[in-house]
């Protein structure tokens, strides 16, 4: 089973939440701003824990943060 497509809504969720900056989100979830940046650009495969933390910050489900399509 391979990963076909991965998308995420982190940038949109940030803008919907008072235009939260990457730095602010990074501080809330306990990672660096650089990690949030590469995450938004799909250049980093995060751990489930990190995605769960981001989902909790925005009060949404994990599926609303990241969408993975498998073959």
């Amino acid at each position, binding site marked *: 089973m391979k*990963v076909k497509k991965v998308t995420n809504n982190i940038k949109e969720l940030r803008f919907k939440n008072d235009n939260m900056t990457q730095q602010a989100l990074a501080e809330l979830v306990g990672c660096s701003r650089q990690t949030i940046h590469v995450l938004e650009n799909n250049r980093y495969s995060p*751990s489930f824990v990190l995605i769960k933390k981001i989902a909790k910050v925005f009060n949404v489900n994990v599926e609303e943060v990241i969408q993975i399509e498998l073959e």
Partner: protein
Amino acid sequence: MSYRTKMNLIILMLQTAFLILYSIVFFNDVSLFISDGTDYRINISIIFAISMMLYLSLQMIMNKKDKLDERNKNIEARSSNVTIVSMIIVTFTLVVTLYLLHLENGSIPIYWLWYFMYTFISLNIIAFTISNLIVPLIGNKYES
């Protein structure tokens, strides 16, 4: 350019400078054909001690200001793997070269071992730092 990238570049430049510096000291104080001479060892030891203190200080400053998150730990783990493999190759190449150069003599001059002792540590740090700079550019993408 991120803070960690800048710090890694500074560490790389400093370690390379120190490596070149004590290589110059070593090759100027000791001729390849003379086995005597103790000054080069003291000089290299002092330079090496300074370089290690600087390296450790910069590491502490970097990790204090930019804490290691899961991505940075992942990068450092992958960099460690690259460093191990590259240093195995470098060690093998250097030792074989030394062996072949002194095959007829039947023995290797001791000062070469002293030089390699310091060189390998600096090369390790340099290889690790270069990997830390290159691995983020490759990225850790989703499997495909």
